[in-house]
């Protein structure tokens, strides 16, 4: 089997790129499982503290809850960016390299905007991280989304760079697909954060015993 007649080969191991792509796909799925467990840990923390309202310390001072729409705006941005990336991936599978370039570039810009929006939201919450359990849990859900978005900014920009450099071709576009897969997961993670922070505000346990603080 000569190199000229065979399908595209992976340069470091000499395997067909499809073999390599299958392996990478499983790797990304496993990364998603691992990362999702971390997100679940944050959601468990949120629900746990919300349901207990220990020492009546769930609510932020003066009940200044976070405004809902920024969470949803960031989720919408993430979903839009993901759609753009999938559009590009579907296009390159049909041989349109230019469309992947456009899709990845758009995706990269939208995700960057979502990332900046997330930073703005973090710095404009009507409470600080020390203002009770709700504030702590909400801050960390937002920080997790910010970390995810910063990684996506890098990945989507890299797909633009790799497409420009000719490393992503119709025969070998698995990396773009993997990034799109990861983006889809990030959408779900951000969506869950938005749902939790929107739906679970006032704690159901309004008669929690108050034992004060050491300072008092």
């Amino acid at each position: 089997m000569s190199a000229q007649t065979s399908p595209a080969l992976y340069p470091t191991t000499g395997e067909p790129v499809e073999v390599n792509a299958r392996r990478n796909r499983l790797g990304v799925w496993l990364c998603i499982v691992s990362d999702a467990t971390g997100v679940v840990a944050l959601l468990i923390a949120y629900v746990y503290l919300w349901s207990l309202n220990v020492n009546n310390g769930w609510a932020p001072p003066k009940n200044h809850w976070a405004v809902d729409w920024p969470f949803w705006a960031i989720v919408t941005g993430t979903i839009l960016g993901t759609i753009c990336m999938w559009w590009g991936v579907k296009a390159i599978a049909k041989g349109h390299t230019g469309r992947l370039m456009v899709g990845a570039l758009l995706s990269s810009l939208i995700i960057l905007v979502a990332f900046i929006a997330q930073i703005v939201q973090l710095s404009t919450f009507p409470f600080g991280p020390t203002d009770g359990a709700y504030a702590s849990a909400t801050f960390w859900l937002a920080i997790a989304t910010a970390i995810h978005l910063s990684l996506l900014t890098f990945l989507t920009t890299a797909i633009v760079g790799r497409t420009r450099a000719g490393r992503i071709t119709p025969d070998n576009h698995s990396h773009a697909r993997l990034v799109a897969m990861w983006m889809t997961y990030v959408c779900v993670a951000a969506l869950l954060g938005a749902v939790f922070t929107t739906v679970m505000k006032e704690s159901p346990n309004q008669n929690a015993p108050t034992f004060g603080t050491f300072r008092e």
Partner: protein
Amino acid sequence: MSQTAVIHEQKAVPQPKQHGKPGGFLYRANIFTGLIGGIGAAVITYAIGDKLVPWGTQNADFSQVGLNALVFCTFAAWVIGFMVGIGAFAGPIRWALGHDLTHVDAEYMAGKGQGRMKYWKYTTDHKVVGIQYLIMALVLFGFGGFFAMLIRTELGATWREVFDPNFYNSLIGTHGIVMIIAMIIVVAGPLGNFIMPLMIGARDMAFPRLNALSFWLLFAAVPPLVLNLVMGGIRDGWTAYQPLGTQAPIGMIGYQVCIITFAFSTGIAGVNLITTIVTMRARGMTWARTPIFIIGTLAAAIMGLIWFPMFQYAQVLAASDKVLGTSFFIPQQGGSVWLYENLFWLLGHPEVYVIVVPATAGILELMVVFLRKPLFSYKLAVAGFAGVVGISAVVWVHHMYMTGFAPAAGYPFMLSTELISIPFGFLVLVMLGTMWRGKAWNRLPMMAVYAVIIDKIIGGITGVYLSDVPVDQYMHGSMFVVAHFHYMLMGAGLFAAMGVIAYWFPKMTGRMFDERIGKIGFWTAFLAFQVTFLSMFVAGLQGMPRRVLQFDNAFEISNWISTIGAYCIGIGMLIFLYALITSWRGGKIAPANPWGANTLEWQTETPVPLANFPVLPVVTSDPYNYGVPDPYLKVQEQLDQDDNETVGAR
């Protein structure tokens, strides 16, 4: 793609453009550049942070938030700086720029032509990473064992306080977490990396660069942990329970940074191990023909991958309470200590199986070779591992019976904990069934089998007692618990590790292990282990609490005996280590297959070449068909005979 490379002397493959020298930035990076990067980043961060920190800021637990933040950032800078210096970020940056590795780059990064220097670099070859893990595990055992000796010195010298009580508590916590990390890596690290790809007939791990990343993250995680001892220590045990963790001195931050980093390392290693096992087994190696050690490694990797992030996030949130002043675990501000305990034990218990499962699988591997018998019920062993993986997810609350958390949950969790003894029972049954009427070849690895069976039975049965809510109410927090988990982790885990390392030592080092000295060390440690921990069971049954410096005279004799036993374990381990080092340096040259084993790792030459196999193997039979004629060989013999007859006729 103007050039091609001939890979494994089989085919010409088009190559991307070569950028600079082979390996690019990694041509120059090594552990020394890593240390310069790490220490430099830490010093600069500390110097800048020192000017910016709002000194005197306290959280609700009067912990110094400003100082905590400074120490956290310094440790984080060390980890990031080290990883930059060693070259961990070169790969992602090259990928983003489209500067893909050529075959020459990949070979350089795998250590080709670098001699011993490859062990000090970001080398991707799984065999190098396996050796690095082995050395790291030995170093950690050295630290942890030394701390154990100090602890026993304090408990043996009942007439005086040898150490300050706070330092003593820190010793307990540091010994615990160092040993847990060492036990997690001692089988899955060296053998999962070095042996597993050979055993499945692969050329390397699925993601070689992630393999190097997982090791060097572990390397970077250790200094913050060890430094805690000079920074106030971790005084609330290896569990770092809250809110004590938030109130603890800054040494606790070393623990938190270590665990967060180590969890990344473990997660990456888990992704790599699972992907390699699932996608890279040799042609013909169906699941039913996959060696049992591989199944055990896969089971441990799945548990680690799923549950480690819980532990990681428990530490992220705990560090956040300490550094940012949030209130996840501070009850005065709406936090809950039970939340920490739940997140912690969601990994904390499966982690026991992450340690014990690959060790048990290794022991099963030894049994078939040294008994020259097929494994008794391969499917039962696989069912045992699957059962452990499944049930391990629903047992964590048995660590919290006495904390006041959901008393009604005690009984279902008691049931689930007792239930897990059934799949473990399968594994013991497979061991006993394999030994039944077997004629043992009593080499050192086989002796580990006997040791592990004894320890596992003692550790397992005492574990069943402790899983009962009424018994646990009496035994909780006593030395009985300490003795029980040492039987499981050290008795079943470490002695198994000694056996499997002795077994695969010839393949890993190219030298035969000095069994004469090794056996002296092994049996000294094993017998001393029984003296130490059986005596500790007695102290626990008498009611001696754990983590105490001073105790009633009633416990003196059992503590003296335990201390003498512990020193003897230390002597035994040193003898074993001596055998390991001298064999490695000047032992007898090992043949390719000294044990006459059937699995693939023994079918390639020793020392193992860079690409592992000249041609990738094809599996045609069960790995444990000892004494059963291979039908394919018969066919081959028949074909050869026919050929000869044809040639003769011509």
